[in-house]
């Protein structure tokens, strides 16, 4: 049973990446920017898994595991930076105000 065509998955992945990029561009709240980054990483992971399924190679899923670890590290560091910014008395999570980080 062939559920999908490769072109359809390519289209879904590019749409997902574009939505994530739009999220990074239009939101200034750091939390939302992190979530949009996660969406973009998921789009890349979907592309790797789809390519692995297309050529029937396990390398795609190996790359998916690497992206998973990368996303975990990125989210942990990003949320730590958000907490550090918030702890210095910043009332909002506006990304434009956080251009000085003496850490």
């Amino acid at each position, binding site marked *: 049973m062939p559920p999908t065509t490769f072109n359809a998955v390519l*289209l*879904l992945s590019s749409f997902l990446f574009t939505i994530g990029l739009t999220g990074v561009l239009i939101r200034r709240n750091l939390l939302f920017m992190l979530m949009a980054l996660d969406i973009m990483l*998921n789009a890349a992971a979907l592309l790797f898994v789809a390519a*692995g399924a297309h050529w029937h190679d396990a390398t795609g899923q190996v790359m998916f595991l690497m992206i998973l670890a990368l996303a975990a590290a990125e989210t942990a560091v990003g*949320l730590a930076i958000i907490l550090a910014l918030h702890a210095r008395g910043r009332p909002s999570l506006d990304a434009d105000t956080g251009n000085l980080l003496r850490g």
Partner: protein
Amino acid sequence: MNTLALLSGSLTLLGAIMVITRRVAVHAVLYLVVTLLALATVFALLGAPFAAVLEVIIYAGAIMVLFVFVIMMLNLGQPDREREKEWLRPRIWGGPALLSTILCAELIYSLSTLPQQTDSFSPLSARDVGLSLFGPYVLMVELVSFLLLAGLVTAFHIGRHRMENR
């Protein structure tokens, strides 16, 4: 095209759009969890059950818990919500959205003219992934462990300074 794949793919896109347009952070996290679960369904339909399970356990489980935890600690209020509302006016995003819709239609049209080849459906099990992961890619596993260690040290460093400043 299969109805299941179409349904889960459109759920993924819908959830992602809802994530970037919500004003309250917790609502966005809920939609992000829906997006990740739908994406896990897409992975399972693509014949990658191991990737689907990892997506649910690590992404929708562990990473989203981090988000919820930080949102609970931050306790964001009304001013943030008002500012985000101010910046999400249709007058601002209308023009770029129209232009990119034209580009998107062009992309769909050009992809539909390409020859459609359906994949031969044969799942890649966790055994294949493990053999590949610890065979030719074992150096990459070590590098990823360095990356995770660097992330851990960085998070600890930033958190330590925060406690000392109080």
